[in-house]
């Protein structure tokens, strides 16, 4: 994308502080207090994991790549900060977000194909393309037609050449970026901050055979190293990490933000342990069925 992030609608209108985000969500929930108490839902991050699984299930047979998938995830997150989830049919919202994201990322899909995949993986009853069309309209207007997204992948590609990351490190950083879409980070921080965090974590934690999820111990080290970056650099023990820490210390990157991102990601990996596909599915199905939202 040619436009710069600094002038983007993403920065101007869709980046919040944590407090703002909490407030927004509270407002939405307050308006539907009854629904909220009647139909409890799992932790937002767990729901996000579930949504991600559903989105990838739809995307895989259509050959949709990571970028449109990421865009769809952000659209869903933005939408649900403005609209109470219990008033919607998440299956329809997810399918539509994916459809719109594909249009936006110049990877257009036929509306019938999206519908077919959605039906396939949700065993739901909406079977009319006009539903997707309608929902798309709502999605666009809720987002004030601010649809351009800047993702951290591009920043990572630049960092990769600068720091000569190994293939494993790069792959790990890439998947950490994929994971950050399961959190609120895309609504909280600039893409380059996320990219730097991902790279930093990848280098510090070292891609090991165990892969993800990341060990909590390693993560604590990472946090410590970050803390040190703001003080004086310690003796050049770990060469590579040191170089990175030095660079971070000298750069004008917002270190508070990087620390916050790191914490957010680490707690995601902790929450992930308690993920259960069925709980999410059932709890969503409960309000969808009870309120006839799938009709």
């Amino acid at each position, binding site marked *: 994308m040619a*436009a710069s992030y600094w002038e*983007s609608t993403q920065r101007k209108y869709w980046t919040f502080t944590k407090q703002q985000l909490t407030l927004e969500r509270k407002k939405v929930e307050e308006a539907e207090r009854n629904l909220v108490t009647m139909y409890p839902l799992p932790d937002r991050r767990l729901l996000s994991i579930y949504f991600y699984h559903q989105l990838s299930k739809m995307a895989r047979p259509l050959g949709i790549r990571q970028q449109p998938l990421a865009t769809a995830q952000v659209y869903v997150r933005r939408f649900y900060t403005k609209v109470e989830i219990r008033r919607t049919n998440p299956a329809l919202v997810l399918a539509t977000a994916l*459809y719109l994201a594909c249009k936006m990322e*110049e990877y257009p899909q036929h*509306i019938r194909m999206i519908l077919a995949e959605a039906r396939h993986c949700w065993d739901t009853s909406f079977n009319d393309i006009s539903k997707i069309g309608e929902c*798309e309209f709502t999605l666009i207007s809720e987002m004030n037609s601010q649809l351009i997204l800047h993702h951290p992948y591009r920043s990572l590609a630049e960092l990769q050449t600068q720091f000569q990351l190994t293939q494993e490190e790069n792959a790990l950083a890439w998947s950490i970026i994929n994971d950050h879409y399961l959190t609120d980070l895309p609504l909280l921080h600039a893409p380059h901050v996320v990219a730097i965090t991902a790279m930093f974590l990848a280098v510090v934690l070292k891609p090991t055979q165990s892969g993800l999820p990341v060990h909590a111990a390693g993560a604590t080290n990472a946090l410590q190293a970050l803390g040190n970056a703001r003080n004086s650099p310690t003796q050049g023990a770990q060469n590579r990490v040191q170089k990175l820490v030095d660079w971070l210390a000298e750069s004008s990157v917002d270190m508070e933000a990087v620390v916050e991102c790191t914490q957010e990601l680490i707690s995601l990996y902790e929450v992930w342990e308690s993920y259960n596909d069925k709980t999410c599915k059932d709890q969503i199905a409960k309000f969808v069925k009870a309120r006839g939202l799938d009709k």
Partner: protein
Amino acid sequence: MVKRKRPKPRPTLSADFKASDSVYYRKPGNESVVGSGTYGKVFKGVHVYTKDMVALKKIRMEGERDGFPVTAIREIKLLQSLNHVNIVKLQEVMVEKNDCFMVFEYLSHDLTGLLNHPTFKLEVAHKKDLAKQLFEGLDYLHRKGVLHRDIKAANILVSNTGQLKLADFGLARFYAKRKKLDYTNRVITIWYRSPELLLGETIYGPEVDIWSAACVLVEIFTKHAIFPGDGGEINQLDKIYNVLGTPTMEDWPGIRDMNWFELLRPTEKKLSTFAEKYKERVTPAAFELLSAMFQFDPVNRPSAADVLEHPYFTTEQPEAKRAEALKELEGDWHEFESKALRKEKEKQDKEARRQAREESQKKDGEKRRAEAAPDPEREAKRVRSGGTSQA
């Protein structure tokens, strides 16, 4: 002590404004239409509180089976990522009842309307200023990696202070600057379409916009379209060959590789009549610039940045001057109004001819009939507007 702020008086709205479905009031019916084409209609609107004028482009949703039109998505995406004085500003996208509108700043004229104005004449320095702004806008687009793909006089807006802005990005797209990718060749209104596109090329770049811009430049200088074809590809190529001559292998080594080269091979050799037709009508530097842009081989055409460095802009007198006299111009002049005016004039002409005939039966004055004949080349334009593909 805290001073109590006196509340602002509640704005009162006239009955018309109150009845408006959104903050942008437009006159009912077709009265507020300022443009129409394959994409839908453009209305003139006014913000009921600020009284700012806007252009409302209605996104046609009827019969769309694939949801929100992908061309509209592209246009919104492009315009939101562009920011330049010579590019029209998209203020917002608005939903009113079941319709979706793109809200643009309003500019009173477009180039077609202005050039066809019955009395207003642009000075040489004003023409240069418009040309300069056109290429500054184009240079910005190409730097940003955007192909406009529908440069024509009707898509170039001019404000009443002489500010020029490129509009209508319905066919525009980002292009890969380093890689050469395949795009559709069904773009650009056919009068402004470059020879390589007419010959079926699908791998192309900013050179196609330069060709279109050169066509517009001729219109700025002479008020007439240089290649007014009948809407078909073959006739369009003929029109080009009639002026520029048929291309030779030396001019354009790549011509053999064009998809439809064999199919559309010219039957006879023609020599260029360009100098004969245009040398006297424009200044020497302008003629030189036009010749450079009307190159058959796209690689030989100058970039927008090169054009801006040309002696026509840098050294030749007079210097560019903003057309401030536009302030005094009454009314709004777009292609749409000048078409309407033309229709009206044709009607009057018909009437005049009829009267003339009756009169000529009495006297023998045949001369007036010839004078009153409508301009045939402008007619072809209407046919052509359906020719732009949305792919």
